[in-house]
Protein backbone atom coordinates (compact mmCIF):
# COMPACT_ATOMS: atom_id res chain seq x y z
CA UNK A 1 0.00 0.00 0.00
CA UNK A 2 2.79 2.37 0.95
CA UNK A 3 4.53 1.61 -2.29
CA UNK A 4 1.31 2.22 -4.22
CA UNK A 5 0.83 5.64 -2.66
CA UNK A 6 4.46 6.53 -3.31
CA UNK A 7 4.30 5.38 -6.93
CA UNK A 8 1.05 7.25 -7.50
CA UNK A 9 2.50 10.56 -6.33
CA UNK A 10 5.67 9.94 -8.27
CA UNK A 11 3.62 9.16 -11.38
CA UNK A 12 1.50 12.27 -11.04
CA UNK A 13 4.52 14.55 -10.76
CA UNK A 14 6.15 12.95 -13.81
CA UNK A 15 2.80 13.04 -15.57
CA UNK A 16 2.41 16.78 -14.99
CA UNK A 17 5.51 17.40 -17.10
CA UNK A 18 4.33 15.08 -19.86
CA UNK A 19 1.03 16.92 -19.71
CA UNK A 20 2.74 20.26 -20.32
CA UNK A 21 4.74 18.79 -23.16
CA UNK A 22 1.69 17.10 -24.68
CA UNK A 23 -0.11 20.44 -24.43
CA UNK A 24 2.61 21.99 -26.57
CA UNK A 25 2.02 19.30 -29.22
CA UNK A 26 -1.74 19.84 -29.06
CA UNK A 27 -1.35 23.60 -29.47
CA UNK A 28 0.55 23.17 -32.73
CA UNK A 29 -1.70 20.37 -33.95
CA UNK A 30 -4.73 22.58 -33.42
CA UNK A 31 -3.15 25.58 -35.10
CA UNK A 32 -1.35 23.94 -38.00
CA UNK A 33 -2.37 20.24 -38.20
CA UNK A 34 1.27 19.25 -37.81
CA UNK A 35 2.62 16.90 -35.15
CA UNK A 36 5.74 18.79 -34.21
CA UNK A 37 8.32 16.05 -33.84
CA UNK A 38 10.94 18.79 -33.33
CA UNK A 39 9.30 19.91 -30.08
CA UNK A 40 11.75 17.93 -27.94
CA UNK A 41 14.85 19.27 -29.66
CA UNK A 42 13.46 22.82 -29.57
CA UNK A 43 12.85 22.46 -25.83
CA UNK A 44 16.39 21.18 -25.25
CA UNK A 45 17.76 24.18 -27.13
CA UNK A 46 15.81 26.48 -24.80
CA UNK A 47 17.12 24.61 -21.75
CA UNK A 48 20.68 25.10 -23.04
CA UNK A 49 19.97 28.83 -23.24
CA UNK A 50 18.83 28.70 -19.61
CA UNK A 51 21.97 26.74 -18.72
CA UNK A 52 24.18 29.43 -20.30
CA UNK A 53 22.33 32.27 -18.62
CA UNK A 54 22.34 30.56 -15.23
CA UNK A 55 26.05 29.73 -15.53
CA UNK A 56 26.84 33.34 -16.42
CA UNK A 57 24.63 35.06 -13.85
CA UNK A 58 24.32 32.46 -11.11
CA UNK A 59 20.54 32.95 -11.07
CA UNK A 60 18.23 30.01 -11.77
CA UNK A 61 15.28 32.32 -12.33
CA UNK A 62 17.03 34.48 -14.94
CA UNK A 63 17.80 31.24 -16.76
CA UNK A 64 14.18 30.14 -16.37
CA UNK A 65 12.87 33.34 -17.94
CA UNK A 66 15.53 33.12 -20.67
CA UNK A 67 14.35 29.60 -21.53
CA UNK A 68 10.76 30.76 -21.97
CA UNK A 69 11.83 33.75 -24.09
CA UNK A 70 14.12 31.51 -26.14
CA UNK A 71 11.21 29.10 -26.56
CA UNK A 72 8.94 31.85 -27.87
CA UNK A 73 11.63 33.05 -30.27
CA UNK A 74 12.46 29.57 -31.50
CA UNK A 75 8.77 28.91 -32.16
CA UNK A 76 8.53 32.08 -34.26
CA UNK A 77 11.71 31.22 -36.19
CA UNK A 78 10.72 27.61 -36.87
CA UNK A 79 7.28 28.64 -38.13
CA UNK A 80 8.38 31.65 -40.19
CA UNK A 81 11.55 30.21 -41.66
CA UNK A 82 10.77 26.50 -42.03
CA UNK A 83 7.22 25.29 -41.44
CA UNK A 84 5.50 28.04 -43.40
CA UNK A 85 7.08 26.65 -46.56
CA UNK A 86 6.14 23.03 -46.01
CA UNK A 87 3.82 21.68 -48.66
CA UNK A 88 0.70 20.49 -46.86
CA UNK A 89 -0.57 18.25 -49.65
CA UNK A 90 0.67 15.22 -47.68
CA UNK A 91 0.58 15.15 -43.89
CA UNK A 92 3.91 13.31 -43.89
CA UNK A 93 5.77 16.33 -45.30
CA UNK A 94 5.53 18.27 -42.05
CA UNK A 95 6.64 15.21 -40.08
CA UNK A 96 9.69 14.65 -42.24
CA UNK A 97 10.70 18.32 -42.09
CA UNK A 98 10.28 18.30 -38.29
CA UNK A 99 12.46 15.20 -38.00
CA UNK A 100 15.09 16.92 -40.14
CA UNK A 101 14.89 19.89 -37.82
CA UNK A 102 15.63 17.58 -34.87
CA UNK A 103 18.90 16.53 -36.51
CA UNK A 104 19.84 20.13 -37.27
CA UNK A 105 19.08 21.40 -33.76
CA UNK A 106 20.80 18.49 -32.04
CA UNK A 107 23.82 18.87 -34.35
CA UNK A 108 24.13 22.59 -33.63
CA UNK A 109 23.77 22.03 -29.87
CA UNK A 110 26.45 19.34 -30.02
CA UNK A 111 28.82 21.69 -31.84
CA UNK A 112 28.20 24.60 -29.47
CA UNK A 113 27.94 22.82 -26.12
CA UNK A 114 29.58 19.44 -26.71
CA UNK A 115 27.85 16.14 -26.20
CA UNK A 116 28.61 15.43 -22.54
CA UNK A 117 25.88 15.48 -19.92
CA UNK A 118 25.62 18.69 -17.88
CA UNK A 119 23.95 18.31 -14.51
CA UNK A 120 21.18 20.90 -14.11
CA UNK A 121 20.19 22.42 -10.78
CA UNK A 122 16.63 22.71 -9.49
CA UNK A 123 15.29 25.83 -7.79
CA UNK A 124 13.77 23.79 -4.96
CA UNK A 125 14.82 20.72 -3.03
CA UNK A 126 13.96 17.36 -4.55
CA UNK A 127 13.88 15.69 -1.10
CA UNK A 128 10.37 14.42 -0.55
CA UNK A 129 8.30 15.20 2.51
CA UNK A 130 7.46 12.06 4.40
CA UNK A 131 4.01 11.46 5.77
CA UNK A 132 3.54 8.28 7.82
CA UNK A 133 6.86 6.96 6.59
CA UNK A 134 6.00 7.33 2.89
CA UNK A 135 7.97 9.76 0.77
CA UNK A 136 5.26 11.70 -1.03
CA UNK A 137 6.16 14.94 -2.72
CA UNK A 138 9.18 17.21 -2.80
CA UNK A 139 9.14 20.98 -2.95
CA UNK A 140 10.25 20.59 -6.55
CA UNK A 141 7.24 18.38 -7.32
CA UNK A 142 4.98 21.07 -5.90
CA UNK A 143 6.73 23.64 -8.09
CA UNK A 144 6.13 21.39 -11.12
CA UNK A 145 2.42 21.07 -10.31
CA UNK A 146 2.09 24.81 -9.76
CA UNK A 147 3.91 25.67 -12.99
CA UNK A 148 1.92 23.22 -15.12
CA UNK A 149 -1.32 24.25 -13.43
CA UNK A 150 -0.56 27.91 -14.14
CA UNK A 151 0.12 27.12 -17.81
CA UNK A 152 -3.12 25.16 -18.21
CA UNK A 153 -5.12 27.89 -16.48
CA UNK A 154 -3.57 30.71 -18.52
CA UNK A 155 -4.01 28.88 -21.81
CA UNK A 156 -7.64 28.14 -20.96
CA UNK A 157 -8.26 31.79 -20.15
CA UNK A 158 -6.41 32.91 -23.26
CA UNK A 159 -8.43 30.68 -25.58
CA UNK A 160 -11.87 31.08 -24.04
CA UNK A 161 -11.87 34.62 -22.65
CA UNK A 162 -9.77 36.85 -24.86
CA UNK A 163 -10.23 38.28 -28.37
CA UNK A 164 -6.79 37.03 -29.38
CA UNK A 165 -7.75 33.50 -28.27
CA UNK A 166 -10.95 33.71 -30.30
CA UNK A 167 -8.91 34.80 -33.32
CA UNK A 168 -6.48 31.92 -32.84
CA UNK A 169 -9.26 29.33 -32.64
CA UNK A 170 -11.13 30.76 -35.62
CA UNK A 171 -7.94 30.93 -37.70
CA UNK A 172 -7.21 27.28 -36.94
CA UNK A 173 -10.71 26.01 -37.70
CA UNK A 174 -11.59 28.16 -40.71
CA UNK A 175 -8.66 30.07 -42.20
CA UNK A 176 -10.41 31.56 -45.24
CA UNK A 177 -13.47 32.70 -43.33
CA UNK A 178 -11.23 34.20 -40.64
CA UNK A 179 -9.29 36.18 -43.20
CA UNK A 180 -12.55 37.52 -44.64
CA UNK A 181 -13.38 38.71 -41.11
CA UNK A 182 -10.07 40.53 -40.83
CA UNK A 183 -8.08 37.98 -38.83
CA UNK A 184 -4.40 37.76 -39.70
CA UNK A 185 -4.26 33.99 -40.05
CA UNK A 186 -0.50 33.90 -40.66
CA UNK A 187 0.08 35.96 -37.52
CA UNK A 188 -2.11 33.66 -35.45
CA UNK A 189 -0.21 30.65 -36.73
CA UNK A 190 3.11 32.21 -35.73
CA UNK A 191 1.68 33.08 -32.32
CA UNK A 192 0.47 29.49 -31.90
CA UNK A 193 3.94 28.12 -32.65
CA UNK A 194 5.54 30.63 -30.29
CA UNK A 195 3.20 29.75 -27.43
CA UNK A 196 3.54 26.01 -28.01
CA UNK A 197 7.30 26.27 -28.16
CA UNK A 198 7.38 28.29 -24.91
CA UNK A 199 5.18 25.69 -23.18
CA UNK A 200 7.51 22.97 -24.51
CA UNK A 201 10.51 24.88 -23.14
CA UNK A 202 8.85 25.09 -19.75
CA UNK A 203 8.30 21.33 -19.83
CA UNK A 204 11.96 20.90 -20.75
CA UNK A 205 13.05 23.11 -17.85
CA UNK A 206 10.93 21.03 -15.49
CA UNK A 207 11.92 17.58 -16.74
CA UNK A 208 15.63 17.85 -17.57
CA UNK A 209 16.80 18.16 -13.93
CA UNK A 210 14.89 14.97 -13.04
CA UNK A 211 16.51 12.97 -15.85
CA UNK A 212 20.17 12.25 -16.48
CA UNK A 213 21.02 15.88 -17.16
CA UNK A 214 21.32 18.22 -20.11
CA UNK A 215 22.37 16.66 -23.41
CA UNK A 216 21.36 17.41 -27.02
CA UNK A 217 19.18 14.29 -27.06
CA UNK A 218 17.92 14.71 -23.49
CA UNK A 219 14.27 15.02 -24.55
CA UNK A 220 14.08 12.09 -26.99
CA UNK A 221 12.60 9.59 -24.55
CA UNK A 222 10.48 12.27 -22.88
CA UNK A 223 9.12 13.16 -26.31
CA UNK A 224 7.87 9.62 -26.84
CA UNK A 225 6.00 9.74 -23.54
CA UNK A 226 4.59 13.16 -24.29
CA UNK A 227 3.58 12.16 -27.81
CA UNK A 228 1.80 9.13 -26.37
CA UNK A 229 0.08 11.40 -23.86
CA UNK A 230 -1.11 13.68 -26.65
CA UNK A 231 -2.36 10.75 -28.76
CA UNK A 232 -4.13 9.21 -25.76
CA UNK A 233 -5.84 12.56 -25.26
CA UNK A 234 -6.75 12.82 -28.93
CA UNK A 235 -4.26 15.50 -30.15
CA UNK A 236 -7.11 17.99 -30.47
CA UNK A 237 -8.02 18.33 -26.85
CA UNK A 238 -6.07 20.32 -24.21
CA UNK A 239 -7.94 18.51 -21.42
CA UNK A 240 -7.10 15.25 -23.17
CA UNK A 241 -3.42 16.19 -23.26
CA UNK A 242 -3.34 16.86 -19.54
CA UNK A 243 -5.22 13.67 -18.71
CA UNK A 244 -3.07 11.71 -21.17
CA UNK A 245 0.06 13.12 -19.52
CA UNK A 246 -1.08 11.99 -16.09
CA UNK A 247 -2.04 8.53 -17.42
CA UNK A 248 1.38 8.08 -19.03
CA UNK A 249 3.14 9.33 -15.89
CA UNK A 250 1.25 6.87 -13.70
CA UNK A 251 1.85 4.02 -16.14
CA UNK A 252 5.60 4.71 -16.17
CA UNK A 253 5.70 4.92 -12.42
CA UNK A 254 3.69 1.73 -11.76
CA UNK A 255 5.60 -0.31 -14.32
CA UNK A 256 8.94 0.96 -12.98
CA UNK A 257 7.91 0.18 -9.43
CA UNK A 258 6.08 -3.11 -9.77
CA UNK A 259 7.77 -4.65 -12.81
CA UNK A 260 11.12 -3.28 -13.82
CA UNK A 261 12.27 0.29 -14.63
CA UNK A 262 13.88 -0.77 -17.90
CA UNK A 263 10.60 -2.02 -19.39
CA UNK A 264 8.70 1.18 -18.51
CA UNK A 265 9.41 2.91 -21.88
CA UNK A 266 8.13 -0.23 -23.62
CA UNK A 267 4.92 -0.02 -21.63
CA UNK A 268 4.45 3.51 -22.99
CA UNK A 269 4.94 2.32 -26.56
CA UNK A 270 2.48 -0.50 -25.91
CA UNK A 271 -0.06 2.03 -24.68
CA UNK A 272 0.53 4.07 -27.84
CA UNK A 273 -0.09 1.04 -30.05
CA UNK A 274 -3.18 -0.03 -28.11
CA UNK A 275 -4.73 3.44 -28.29
CA UNK A 276 -3.94 3.81 -31.99
CA UNK A 277 -5.47 0.40 -32.73
CA UNK A 278 -8.46 0.64 -30.43
CA UNK A 279 -9.39 4.29 -30.40
CA UNK A 280 -7.30 6.15 -32.97
CA UNK A 281 -9.19 9.38 -32.33
CA UNK A 282 -7.95 9.37 -28.75
CA UNK A 283 -9.97 9.05 -25.59
CA UNK A 284 -11.18 12.65 -25.70
CA UNK A 285 -11.45 13.43 -29.38
CA UNK A 286 -14.82 14.14 -30.86
CA UNK A 287 -13.53 14.70 -34.37
CA UNK A 288 -13.11 12.08 -37.03
CA UNK A 289 -10.08 9.81 -37.22
CA UNK A 290 -6.80 11.45 -38.07
CA UNK A 291 -4.74 10.78 -41.14
CA UNK A 292 -1.30 11.24 -39.60
Amino acid sequence: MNQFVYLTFDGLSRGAVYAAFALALVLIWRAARIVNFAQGAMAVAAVYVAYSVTSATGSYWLGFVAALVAGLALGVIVERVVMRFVDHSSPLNGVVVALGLVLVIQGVLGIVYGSEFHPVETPFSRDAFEIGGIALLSRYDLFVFAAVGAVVASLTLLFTRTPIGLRMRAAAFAPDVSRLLGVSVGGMLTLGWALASAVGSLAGMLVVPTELGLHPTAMDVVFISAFTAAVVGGLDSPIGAVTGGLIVGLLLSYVSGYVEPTVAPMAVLLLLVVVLLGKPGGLFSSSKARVA
Partner: protein
Amino acid sequence: MSSALLQVEGLTAGYGAAPVLHDVNLSVQPGEIVAVLGANGAGKTTLLRTLSGLVRTTGGRVVFNGEDLKGTKVEQMVRRGIAHVPEGRGVVTELTVDENLRLGGLWRRDQADAKRALDEVYELFPALAQRRASAGHQLSGGERQMLALGRALVSGPKLLLLDEPSLGLAPKITAQIMALLRDLQKKKGLAVLLVEQNVRSALSIADEGVVLALGRVVTRNKAAALRDDADLRHAYLGF
Protein backbone atom coordinates in the same frame (compact mmCIF):
# COMPACT_ATOMS: atom_id res chain seq x y z
CA MET B 1 -20.57 56.56 -62.71
CA SER B 2 -17.94 58.02 -60.41
CA SER B 3 -20.40 57.85 -57.52
CA ALA B 4 -20.55 54.05 -57.63
CA LEU B 5 -19.71 52.24 -54.40
CA LEU B 6 -18.17 49.37 -56.32
CA GLN B 7 -16.83 49.77 -59.81
CA VAL B 8 -15.45 46.72 -61.60
CA GLU B 9 -13.69 47.40 -64.90
CA GLY B 10 -12.33 44.79 -67.29
CA LEU B 11 -11.78 42.28 -64.49
CA THR B 12 -9.95 39.11 -65.48
CA ALA B 13 -9.14 36.52 -62.86
CA GLY B 14 -8.86 32.82 -62.22
CA TYR B 15 -6.99 29.92 -60.73
CA GLY B 16 -3.62 29.12 -62.29
CA ALA B 17 -3.13 29.75 -65.98
CA ALA B 18 -6.71 29.57 -67.23
CA PRO B 19 -8.82 32.63 -66.40
CA VAL B 20 -12.35 32.02 -65.14
CA LEU B 21 -13.51 35.62 -65.48
CA HIS B 22 -13.01 37.54 -68.71
CA ASP B 23 -13.28 41.30 -68.92
CA VAL B 24 -16.09 41.65 -66.39
CA ASN B 25 -17.64 45.09 -65.98
CA LEU B 26 -20.23 45.93 -63.37
CA SER B 27 -21.04 48.50 -60.75
CA VAL B 28 -22.97 48.70 -57.51
CA GLN B 29 -24.33 52.06 -56.36
CA PRO B 30 -24.57 52.86 -52.65
CA GLY B 31 -27.66 51.16 -51.22
CA GLU B 32 -28.28 49.13 -54.35
CA ILE B 33 -28.92 45.37 -54.58
CA VAL B 34 -27.33 43.83 -57.65
CA ALA B 35 -27.99 40.20 -58.46
CA VAL B 36 -25.34 38.16 -60.25
CA LEU B 37 -27.05 35.39 -62.17
CA GLY B 38 -25.95 32.55 -64.34
CA ALA B 39 -25.66 28.79 -64.65
CA ASN B 40 -23.29 26.58 -62.66
CA GLY B 41 -19.71 27.31 -63.62
CA ALA B 42 -20.51 30.76 -64.98
CA GLY B 43 -17.97 32.29 -62.60
CA LYS B 44 -20.34 33.80 -60.03
CA THR B 45 -18.53 32.50 -56.96
CA THR B 46 -15.15 33.27 -58.51
CA LEU B 47 -16.33 36.84 -59.06
CA LEU B 48 -17.09 37.28 -55.34
CA ARG B 49 -13.86 35.55 -54.30
CA THR B 50 -11.90 37.84 -56.61
CA LEU B 51 -13.57 40.94 -55.23
CA SER B 52 -12.63 39.98 -51.68
CA GLY B 53 -9.08 39.05 -52.67
CA LEU B 54 -9.25 35.27 -52.26
CA VAL B 55 -8.62 34.80 -55.99
CA ARG B 56 -5.88 36.76 -57.70
CA THR B 57 -6.77 39.40 -60.24
CA THR B 58 -4.86 39.09 -63.50
CA GLY B 59 -6.29 42.10 -65.25
CA GLY B 60 -8.62 45.07 -64.94
CA ARG B 61 -9.38 46.94 -61.77
CA VAL B 62 -11.77 47.11 -58.86
CA VAL B 63 -12.53 50.45 -57.27
CA PHE B 64 -14.39 50.47 -53.98
CA ASN B 65 -15.53 53.65 -52.30
CA GLY B 66 -13.14 55.64 -54.49
CA GLU B 67 -10.11 53.44 -53.72
CA ASP B 68 -8.41 51.01 -56.07
CA LEU B 69 -8.37 47.64 -54.28
CA LYS B 70 -5.26 46.46 -56.11
CA GLY B 71 -2.92 44.77 -53.65
CA THR B 72 -5.38 44.96 -50.76
CA LYS B 73 -5.07 41.85 -48.61
CA VAL B 74 -8.08 39.68 -47.83
CA GLU B 75 -7.73 40.62 -44.14
CA GLN B 76 -8.05 44.31 -45.03
CA MET B 77 -11.31 44.04 -46.98
CA VAL B 78 -13.51 44.04 -43.89
CA ARG B 79 -11.78 47.24 -42.74
CA ARG B 80 -12.65 48.88 -46.06
CA GLY B 81 -16.31 47.96 -45.57
CA ILE B 82 -16.69 44.79 -47.63
CA ALA B 83 -18.23 41.75 -45.93
CA HIS B 84 -18.16 38.49 -47.84
CA VAL B 85 -20.49 35.68 -46.79
CA PRO B 86 -18.99 32.75 -48.67
CA GLU B 87 -20.74 29.84 -50.31
CA GLY B 88 -21.71 27.27 -47.70
CA ARG B 89 -21.99 30.22 -45.27
CA GLY B 90 -18.66 29.87 -43.49
CA VAL B 91 -20.06 29.48 -40.01
CA VAL B 92 -17.18 28.30 -37.83
CA THR B 93 -18.97 25.20 -36.59
CA GLU B 94 -16.59 24.60 -33.68
CA LEU B 95 -17.35 28.03 -32.19
CA THR B 96 -20.55 29.12 -30.49
CA VAL B 97 -23.10 31.46 -32.02
CA ASP B 98 -21.87 34.27 -29.80
CA GLU B 99 -18.23 33.63 -30.67
CA ASN B 100 -19.03 33.56 -34.39
CA LEU B 101 -20.81 36.88 -34.13
CA ARG B 102 -18.09 38.49 -32.02
CA LEU B 103 -15.55 37.39 -34.60
CA GLY B 104 -17.23 39.77 -37.05
CA GLY B 105 -16.49 42.79 -34.86
CA LEU B 106 -12.96 41.96 -33.71
CA TRP B 107 -11.32 44.11 -36.36
CA ARG B 108 -12.90 47.29 -35.01
CA ARG B 109 -10.74 49.66 -32.99
CA ASP B 110 -13.69 50.78 -30.89
CA GLN B 111 -15.14 47.67 -29.28
CA ALA B 112 -18.17 49.66 -28.09
CA ASP B 113 -19.24 49.89 -31.75
CA ALA B 114 -18.81 46.14 -32.11
CA LYS B 115 -20.92 45.56 -29.02
CA ARG B 116 -23.69 47.81 -30.36
CA ALA B 117 -23.65 46.03 -33.71
CA LEU B 118 -23.78 42.68 -31.92
CA ASP B 119 -26.83 43.73 -29.89
CA GLU B 120 -28.55 44.93 -33.06
CA VAL B 121 -27.98 41.59 -34.72
CA TYR B 122 -29.48 39.78 -31.75
CA GLU B 123 -32.52 42.04 -32.04
CA LEU B 124 -32.73 41.34 -35.74
CA PHE B 125 -32.47 37.57 -35.22
CA PRO B 126 -34.17 36.61 -31.95
CA ALA B 127 -33.57 32.95 -32.86
CA LEU B 128 -29.83 33.52 -32.59
CA ALA B 129 -30.19 35.33 -29.27
CA GLN B 130 -31.83 32.23 -27.85
CA ARG B 131 -28.97 30.05 -29.04
CA ARG B 132 -26.01 32.23 -28.05
CA ALA B 133 -24.12 29.41 -26.38
CA SER B 134 -24.89 26.69 -28.96
CA ALA B 135 -22.04 25.48 -31.13
CA GLY B 136 -22.30 26.28 -34.84
CA HIS B 137 -22.68 22.62 -35.77
CA GLN B 138 -25.89 22.39 -33.72
CA LEU B 139 -27.69 24.94 -35.88
CA SER B 140 -30.12 24.23 -38.71
CA GLY B 141 -29.32 25.41 -42.24
CA GLY B 142 -31.56 28.46 -41.86
CA GLU B 143 -30.01 29.38 -38.53
CA ARG B 144 -26.55 29.06 -40.01
CA GLN B 145 -27.47 31.42 -42.82
CA MET B 146 -28.81 33.92 -40.28
CA LEU B 147 -25.61 33.54 -38.26
CA ALA B 148 -23.40 34.09 -41.31
CA LEU B 149 -25.45 37.14 -42.30
CA GLY B 150 -25.51 38.42 -38.73
CA ARG B 151 -21.77 38.04 -38.44
CA ALA B 152 -21.26 40.01 -41.65
CA LEU B 153 -23.53 42.74 -40.26
CA VAL B 154 -21.53 42.92 -37.01
CA SER B 155 -18.54 43.88 -39.13
CA GLY B 156 -20.44 47.01 -40.19
CA PRO B 157 -20.17 46.71 -43.97
CA LYS B 158 -21.03 49.18 -46.72
CA LEU B 159 -21.22 46.33 -49.22
CA LEU B 160 -22.29 42.76 -48.62
CA LEU B 161 -21.04 40.04 -50.96
CA LEU B 162 -23.51 37.23 -50.55
CA ASP B 163 -22.93 33.84 -52.15
CA GLU B 164 -25.97 31.60 -52.65
CA PRO B 165 -27.83 32.42 -49.43
CA SER B 166 -30.77 30.24 -50.50
CA LEU B 167 -28.65 27.11 -51.01
CA GLY B 168 -30.30 24.16 -49.29
CA LEU B 169 -32.94 26.27 -47.56
CA ALA B 170 -36.71 25.87 -47.58
CA PRO B 171 -38.52 28.41 -49.81
CA LYS B 172 -40.10 30.04 -46.77
CA ILE B 173 -36.73 30.70 -45.16
CA THR B 174 -35.28 31.92 -48.45
CA ALA B 175 -38.16 34.39 -48.67
CA GLN B 176 -37.45 35.59 -45.11
CA ILE B 177 -33.81 36.18 -45.93
CA MET B 178 -34.65 38.07 -49.13
CA ALA B 179 -37.13 40.22 -47.20
CA LEU B 180 -34.46 40.91 -44.61
CA LEU B 181 -31.99 42.03 -47.26
CA ARG B 182 -34.54 44.45 -48.65
CA ASP B 183 -35.14 45.76 -45.12
CA LEU B 184 -31.44 46.30 -44.53
CA GLN B 185 -31.23 48.10 -47.85
CA LYS B 186 -34.10 50.43 -46.94
CA LYS B 187 -33.19 51.08 -43.31
CA LYS B 188 -29.40 51.10 -43.46
CA GLY B 189 -28.62 51.77 -47.10
CA LEU B 190 -26.69 48.52 -47.27
CA ALA B 191 -25.52 47.63 -50.77
CA VAL B 192 -25.55 43.95 -51.73
CA LEU B 193 -23.92 42.01 -54.53
CA LEU B 194 -26.03 38.88 -54.48
CA VAL B 195 -25.01 35.67 -56.21
CA GLU B 196 -27.96 33.34 -56.62
CA GLN B 197 -29.05 30.23 -58.44
CA ASN B 198 -32.56 31.00 -57.36
CA VAL B 199 -33.19 33.59 -60.05
CA ARG B 200 -36.77 34.41 -59.13
CA SER B 201 -35.95 35.20 -55.50
CA ALA B 202 -32.92 37.20 -56.47
CA LEU B 203 -34.74 39.29 -59.07
CA SER B 204 -37.62 39.83 -56.67
CA ILE B 205 -35.45 42.04 -54.47
CA ALA B 206 -32.66 43.19 -56.79
CA ASP B 207 -32.55 46.63 -58.40
CA GLU B 208 -30.28 45.43 -61.13
CA GLY B 209 -29.10 42.11 -62.53
CA VAL B 210 -25.89 41.00 -64.16
CA VAL B 211 -25.96 37.77 -66.15
CA LEU B 212 -22.72 35.82 -66.41
CA ALA B 213 -22.07 33.01 -68.86
CA LEU B 214 -18.70 31.24 -69.07
CA GLY B 215 -17.05 34.05 -67.13
CA ARG B 216 -18.31 36.90 -69.29
CA VAL B 217 -21.06 39.42 -68.68
CA VAL B 218 -23.75 38.79 -71.27
CA THR B 219 -26.31 41.25 -69.96
CA ARG B 220 -26.61 44.06 -67.41
CA ASN B 221 -30.04 45.50 -66.91
CA LYS B 222 -32.73 46.56 -64.46
CA ALA B 223 -34.09 43.59 -62.56
CA ALA B 224 -37.62 44.21 -63.85
CA ALA B 225 -36.40 44.18 -67.44
CA LEU B 226 -34.56 40.89 -66.89
CA ARG B 227 -37.68 39.33 -65.40
CA ASP B 228 -39.62 40.27 -68.50
CA ASP B 229 -37.04 39.21 -71.07
CA ALA B 230 -38.26 35.76 -72.04
CA ASP B 231 -35.43 35.03 -74.51
CA LEU B 232 -32.76 35.81 -71.98
CA ARG B 233 -34.46 33.76 -69.29
CA HIS B 234 -34.61 30.74 -71.58
CA ALA B 235 -31.06 31.14 -72.83
CA TYR B 236 -29.21 31.74 -69.60
CA LEU B 237 -31.41 31.45 -66.59
CA GLY B 238 -33.41 28.33 -67.25
CA PHE B 239 -36.97 29.40 -66.44
